[in-house]
């Protein structure tokens, strides 16, 4: 096969990996030169976690075309599972940080994936806004349940209760999850390198899935459900597949996020957290993986950069958000963009190939 020009698909894949690796190199070099401020270096792991979350949510919202408002729920399942696993492994005498992290991340992803699958079964019976509200409801239920979980570990093994920490019946050992107070005393073992590794894995999983038999089926269901059914595709299966894989990836990202702080509480993973991730996806472009990466990184850093105007930064953030959404649809902007395009001679080619397709035929009952 002669390589004339790269297919758009291949090009965007290369761009995606290049962005991640370049970001890693730049940050490492800057860090080595001591050019990264304390507040920013504290943000490096969360940025990686949010990038992973955005990429995985894009699999649901952009690639599969289902609006999910409960992604933070799966993130929290991963985070708390990871804390418990790390607690148990530490108790078993494992103190290699890489092993601890890998073990937590894998189990966190599997548990979040299983929860995602179980939640997905009823959710995928619905469509559109009804599906969105049910994912929101599941996210809130997960948060609510975690608020009532008490888990501790001692030499006898794991203890679990849903009433309070004293009913765990432990005399020694450590309480890993303490209801609304969340998980305390977490080993801070997440590092930027691990974060980048997780981002790369997430990106690879999502891109490889997209550009495969199953990924094409997922996108076909998104583009036209009825046509997808007509060519023999089990639409529920593929919507569920995207949802489950995304949940598992969110779980792993949750572990990364949790292991960066000494304390996490269930209320951190609420509806607003889910919305935050959704904003990254929409701003980066639906189905556009490198867009998600850039927008998640940018929007996580933005409030930090705005810290000097502390009081007004969230207000400004809100205004930026509205403007980014609204301005491209203003007539003035469209006219200006059109004029610019004409000025620089692009667009004729687009016009030529523009679709002449219209809704065909009259309805036949």
């Amino acid at each position, binding site marked *: 096969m002669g390589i004339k020009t790269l297919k758009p698909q291949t090009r965007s894949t290369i761009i995606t990996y290049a962005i991640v690796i370049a970001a890693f190199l730049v940050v490492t070099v800057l860090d080595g030169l001591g050019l990264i401020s304390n507040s920013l270096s504290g943000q490096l792991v969360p940025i990686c976690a949010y990038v992973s979350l955005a990429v995985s949510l894009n699999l649901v919202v952009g690639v599969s075309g289902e609006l999910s408002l409960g992604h933070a729920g799966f993130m929290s399942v991963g985070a708390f599972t990871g804390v418990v696993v790390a607690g148990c492994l530490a108790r078993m005498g494992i103190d290699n940080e890489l092993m601890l992290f890998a073990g937590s991340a894998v189990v966190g992803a599997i548990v979040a994936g299983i929860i995602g699958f179980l939640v997905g079964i009823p959710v995928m019976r619905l469509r559109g806004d009804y599906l969105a509200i049910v994912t929101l409801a599941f996210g809130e239920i997960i948060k609510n349940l975690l608020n009532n979980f008490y888990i501790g570990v001692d030499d006898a093994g794991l203890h679990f209760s849903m009433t309070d920490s004293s009913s765990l019946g432990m005399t020694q050992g450590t309480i890993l999850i303490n209801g609304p107070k969340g998980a305390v005393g977490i080993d801070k073992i997440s590092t930027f390198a691990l974060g980048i590794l997780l981002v790369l894995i997430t990106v690879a999983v999502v891109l490889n*899935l997209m550009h495969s038999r199953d990924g094409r089926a997922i*996108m*076909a269901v998104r*583009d036209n459900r009825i046509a997808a059914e*007509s*060519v023999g595709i*089990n639409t529920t299966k593929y919507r569920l597949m995207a949802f489950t894989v995304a949940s598992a990836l969110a779980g792993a990202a949750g572990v990364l996020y949790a292991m960066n702080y000494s304390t996490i509480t269930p209320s951190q993973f609420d509806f607003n957290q889910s919305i935050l991730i959704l904003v990254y996806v929409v701003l980066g472009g639906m189905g556009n993986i490198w867009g998600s990466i850039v927008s998640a990184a940018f929007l996580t850093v933005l409030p930090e950069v705005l810290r000097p105007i502390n009081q007004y930064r969230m207000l400004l953030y809100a205004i930026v958000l509205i403007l980014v959404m609204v301005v491209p649809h203003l007539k003035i902007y469209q006219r200006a963009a059109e004029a610019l395009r004409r000025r620089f001679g692009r667009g004729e080619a687009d016009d030529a190939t523009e*679709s002449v397709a219209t809704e*065909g035929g009259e309805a036949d009952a």
Partner: protein
Amino acid sequence: MPKLFSDFAKARRENTRMVPVPSQALIPDRDIYASPVLECVHLGIDFGGLKAVDDFNLTIGKTEIAGLIGPNGAGKTTVFNLLTKVYTPTRGTIMVDGHDTAGLDPARVNRLGVARTFQNIRLFNTLTVEENVMVGLHNQHHCGMATSILRLPHHWKSERYYHERALELLDIFDMCGLADHEAGSLPYGAQRRLEIVRALATNPKLLLLDEPAAGMNPSETAELMENIVKIRDEFQIAIMLIEHDMNLVMNICEGICVLNFGKIIAKGTPEDIQQNDAVVEAYLGKQKKEVA
């Protein structure tokens, strides 16, 4: 009604004779030893109180080209939606290649061997032309999710299969050059042809075409007619089409079924249909008795 047969069609038709099977339905004599690809018995559906389709009986031979015609709103597309289980029939049975389709969903019906195109084109608009066909090939070749994610050797082998097969199929309509174009950006005629290719990719036994010539000019229609016959001959499948272009229907269809107000008003060969009073009445209205 004017005579619509071309010499080409007449010559080809002389080799085909429609003969009755035990259920009294007519199928081409060459298909008599194979079980019919489609048998509908007393098929019907109600929308609210309205009987949109009622008592629909039809048998299609294994390599027959059948036409479904009728005035606007007669229920033709509804019949297609019933056959593909987009709508669940209120009553009656549909047998595809000897299998009852009761309780099956559209995807399973497709796997049994029924593929279709849509009156209002339904392509996967953001995917490329090639990918559209690849999605059609979904059930012809398998490759698991884990294999794809880990990019194991089998994944690459599968991708090669999909790529090569997709191009082979696109070649039927000379569309290989468009393989990397976004399906939604194609001109109307190409979109219609792509839908047929995508349906063919599912390896059907029965291909349902809903107004394949809509919006085409006479030369495009002529080309389409040749291609429909070519597809039937090459793939040895049955094709059923809804079409308003009588030239196309009368030329290539072997059996024709006329629908009006959800009921079959006539069945038979093109010759029979053209001489049928009920059909003429359905299309042109009741003719007033001329006073001499």
